[in-house]
């Protein structure tokens, strides 16, 4: 087997679902993300790794314009979804978020029933028909691998579920509006190992239906669930490539130091 050059050329992505060019994010005067160019492949899982505080969450939140909801945040550069710029002046961030869903670090079900949690986004979107809602809720719960556990208690509070189930409920809620991309910010960080394993299986299944970008501080998790991995350090994208290659033959010293546990 020939030795790889330090920066091996990657296989081109089949479909680029999201693309950022020169993306910078500022909190007031402080710059948290520096000029990031990243392509997110369609029906792939892209993992974002890096030491905490390096801007992974900030970067992730700029992919569905959630940063717009925070006071004093300024975003420059470009983000495209299927080639359409989502920061163009005529784009409604609310509409962007229906195409690019999000699951948060800590599960945050609404204090409503399981059914109403999942139906929330659909009702916001104007769906009123009871039968249609029921079909879509069931579909989302099945996709989130929660149907079997939840089908007999759809009208019980979502807060009565276990931690892992709550996180899957949040995924079902996000899936119900049928987004094209799902952003996940350390979704397993509050879960026990068994719930984490289930969640990882689920992520692998979901890839058939949509594109996933996941932030994780767990190297093994990144290796298990993702096809591509992007390494962030101090607000900059240091390196991105196929996950397997990133973990076996990182192209940058900083990446190698990080994945071998020398810092972070």
């Amino acid at each position, binding site marked *: 087997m020939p030795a790889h050059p330090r920066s091996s050329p990657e296989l081109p992505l089949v479909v680029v679902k999201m693309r950022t060019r020169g993306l910078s994010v500022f909190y007031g005067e402080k710059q948290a993300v520096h000029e990031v160019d990243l392509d997110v492949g369609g029906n792939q899982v892209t993992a974002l790794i890096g030491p905490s505080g390096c801007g992974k969450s900030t970067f992730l939140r700029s992919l569905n314009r959630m940063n717009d909801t925070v006071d004093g945040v300024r975003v420059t550069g470009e983000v495209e979804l299927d080639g359409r710029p989502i920061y163009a002046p005529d784009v409604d961030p609310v509409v962007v978020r229906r195409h690019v869903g999000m699951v*948060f670090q800590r599960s945050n079900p609404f204090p409503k029933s399981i059914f109403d949690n999942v139906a929330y986004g659909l009702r*916001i979107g104007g769906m009123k028909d009871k039968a249609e809602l029921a079909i879509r809720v069931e579909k989302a719960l099945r996709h989130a691998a929660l149907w079997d556990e939840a089908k007999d208690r759809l009208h019980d509070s979502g807060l009565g579920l276990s931690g892992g189930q709550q996180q899957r409920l949040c995924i079902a809620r996000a899936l119900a509006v049928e987004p094209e991309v799902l952003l996940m910010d350390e979704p397993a960080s509050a879960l026990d190992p068994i719930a984490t394993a289930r969640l990882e299986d689920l992520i692998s299944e979901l890839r058939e239906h949509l594109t996933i970008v996941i932030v994780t501080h767990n190297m093994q998790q990144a290796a298990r669930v993702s096809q591509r991995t992007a390494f962030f350090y101090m607000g900059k994208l240091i390196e991105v490539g196929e996950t397997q290659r990133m973990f076996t033959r990182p192209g940058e010293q900083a990446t190698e130091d990080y994945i071998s546990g020398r810092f972070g």
Partner: protein
Amino acid sequence: MTTFSLVPPGAPARPAGVFTRRDGLVDSLLVAGTGSACVLMLVMLGVVLLDIVVGGGRRLSWEFLTAAPTHGMTAGGIFPAIVGTALLTFLMTFAAVPAGVATAVYLTEYAPSNSPLARGVRVAIANLAGVPSIVFGLFGIGFFVTTLGGAIDSVLFGGELTFAQPSLIWAALTLSLLTLPVVVVATEEALRSVPQSLRDASLALGATRLETITRIVLPEAMGGILTGAILAVSRGAGEVAPIMFTGAAYFLPRLPSHLNDSFMNLGYHVYVLATQSPDVEKTKPILYGTALVLLLLTFLLNLVAVIMRSRSRGKVKPAQF
């Protein structure tokens, strides 16, 4: 003499006596002091309540609650004052609660954290809360009765005296100004207790800010908002100073039927009976009875607030009541 001992810097890590109590005397004094302050407060409340309940309980009867005062207010009941207080409270709530909730929603959900407007409004609210209630009364007669009422009369009634006189509507509005800061502060607190993560979840699902507020934030905060509103209203309902110039009547045996009628009021009635009565000894039982009714109504409102608060926290099941 002090029982404190400070370990000087550079002393051995564990000097002798480091494990002995150093706060014994101060501690006991503090417990004794704070404890007796609590007892004193309870005793004072107890004396006031006992006096009013014993003095007023005898006077309380169906007739007292349903009849108008007679014989120069030395006999009869307090029905017009009860109705007047209820109407006043209702109108005041109607004015203060929506405005207060709307203000709080703007301050917590919309205004940027560094907005000068929001800061100005907060300062104004804090100052409004510190204004003595008699000043509200003076403001009420100066602004509502004379200026606003006068303007309405000259524009709508051809100068005929209709609204430019103390009346129910002006008293209610004056009182609502006094209640407003409390409603705003209580609502802000209730809104802030809704976790940001719920707002984020809703926004991330493609809900607008308004949808997030109406479907998630307000329902979550409703218990706290209602509790705060009721406490504010019950506080305002007992105030006399803001209404004595703006609409409360000394004696008015008939019930108010229009917004520009004046009205009797329990708090004002107590004041009148206590200070203006022609025969103090004869009025005393009525005075006590009126005070008791006012107290009971206020307690009733507070009880509703307490029940709602505990229910909204999910600690007490409704069935237990």
